[in-house]
């Protein structure tokens, strides 16, 4: 659980060792072992003080949140605390533990493939400020992020 959560935080912070992209997958990688190797590499030899500080401006940019310089500093410190806490968790030796995909064990909860019309679609459309009878109007977009 810790190793996966760490994965999440690490992918959010600046590029360190491994930038995980779908396009780099090739047949030589077995996915389960891949998680294990990432997990192992993080848990082996790093200590909290070596973890890089978060690039808060970049984080805010990707999340489309605007921050003032003082907010950036404030956030930076708090996020740093969380990362350091995960750094402590890294100290635990989990070399003999098989990584889990998720914390809970049941899985399931699947839905039948039976269509249902949502009754209050009109109020959904009405709540969109730029809705124009048939379509949502949006500003012109040139490029995907």
């Amino acid at each position, binding site marked *: 659980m810790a190793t*996966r959560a760490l*994965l*999440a935080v690490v*992918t*959010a912070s600046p590029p360190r060792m491994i*930038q*995980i*992209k*779908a396009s780099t*997958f*090739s*047949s030589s990688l077995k*996915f*389960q072992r*891949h*998680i294990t190797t990432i997990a192992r590499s993080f848990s082996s030899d790093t200590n909290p003080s070596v973890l890089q500080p978060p690039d808060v401006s970049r984080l805010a940019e*990707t999340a*489309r949140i605007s921050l003032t310089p003082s907010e950036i500093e404030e956030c930076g410190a708090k996020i740093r605390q969380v990362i350091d806490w995960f750094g402590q968790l890294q100290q635990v030796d989990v070399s003999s533990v098989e990584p889990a*995909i*998720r914390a*809970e064990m*049941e*899985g*399931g*909860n*699947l*839905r*039948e*493939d*039976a*269509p*249902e*019309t*949502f009754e209050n*679609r009109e109020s*959904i*459309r009405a709540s969109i400020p730029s*809705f*124009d009878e*048939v*379509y*949502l*109007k*949006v*500003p*012109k*977009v*040139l*490029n*995907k*992020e």
Partner: protein
Amino acid sequence: MSTTLFRTIQPNHFTLLTTALLRTRTKTSRHISVRCQTSTTTQQPRTSAPKNHGSNKLDEILKDYEAVIGIETHVQLSTSTKAFCSCPNSYGSHPNTSICPVCMGLPGALPVLSSKVVDFGVRLGLALNCSLSLKSKFDRKQYFYPDLPKGYQISQFDVPIASGGYVDVDIPLEFGGGHRRFGITRVHMEEDAGKLLHSDAGDYSQAMIVDLNRAGVPLLEIVSEPDMRSGVEAAEYGSEMQRIVRYLGVSNGNMQEGSLRCDVNISIRPIGQAEFGTKVEIKNLNAFSAMSRAIDYEITRQALLYNQGQADKIVTETRLWDEGAQKTVTMRKKEGLADYRYFPEPDLPEVILTQEYVDSIRASLPELPEAKRRRYEAMGLGIQDVLFLANDVSVAEYFDEVIGKGADVKSAANWLMSDIAAYLKNEELSISDVKLTPHELAELIAAIKDETISGKIGKQILFELLAKGGTVQGMIKEKDLITDPVEIEKMIMKVISESPKQLEQYRSGKTKLQGFFAGQVMKMSKGKANPALLNKILLEKLNAKE
């Protein structure tokens, strides 16, 4: 090997046309042979001259460079509901009517996975010979775009439902023929985004418009290994994906509707070099023929840059295929790779498959195209026939039924490929609409075989049965065929008396002239004479008198 492949493409452009005529076009505008159809209808004036040059150029290029091609295919599933909510999944509804808080990404709404999506995922994974992950999960792929209500797409990142498979294809004869095996890296489940369109209001500078009916529609993404080496191979891979999803019934595989979308990744490298060259992505391909042409163009473009010592001008980018100009063009160059900040989807539990579940699905898979092709080959059919019959699952089923009733395999194949296919094309029908039942076709073939009727009459009966239905026996009665030996003898005697010269020639050894006499009798009887009787009596008369 690849040079021979390309050398055969251009001169045979018009044999593509003739083979296209033999392939059916269904009412639902399903293209059986998409690459033939589109290239003939849109490209005729343009492609004859430049393509010839292109072919020689391509040959030259392929002596020095190898193209490395991978394809990402998105298949829209034909489920009744969206992936994570119960909104109806139907193409062509009035915009923004198939919506609910879940697919609109409204606060507090939670996704619930459809069991059908898992079923289809397993089905496709097995059909592509993959290993299934009995445990897999969903992840959030985060980016901002107007057609993405939640600001992230629910997808599968590092633990997809299926991986490590392959697909076997047959390259069409006109491109050199042969078998190929292409690897499949992975298959995973994800949801589609909405549709972003230009507003019709003519005000292109200000706004675009969004229809969210498609947001949340289930997709299966298939990523191939970079095993293809040419436009032809890539097009055949794409066609096989289409065939497989249609055979399985998981999607209608219409590239025009957008239920089958292919993006190509292509790089070239000097022959012998181990490292891959810089990869370029090509999008906006609406047909397999376009895919093939786009790849040919891109190979040429990249090789030219290499030859000019400007290989560094080839950058990792996405290019769009411009069907009008027949070239790839740059989208705005990306500033670095996208950072999707993947993390496990907290609102969805693990996807758990039991071995029994997988086994039961495996047991219920239909005979897939590859297996059908091998079976038809084993029956003695030529590869051209095999490829035609196995291409459309409905045609293959029809054919299987006809020969299941004992009809001669080659005759059944011929009727389907020629007269019946031509009829279907003219009338714009699919094989399932036709009024001629497989049983009656088998009867017809048998009747011609045992010489109850002539081939000519057989054809007439075929057309009537196709259009109006009915039975062969009924038609035979209606046609008032001549089966009375006395009548036939009369006609034979008349013909013999009218052709003394031929009679003499026959008597002096030219026994092939029997056909001449038979033809004359047929003409006289307007084709209604029973061929078996005719020949029997004719032979008697020709050999008897002196």
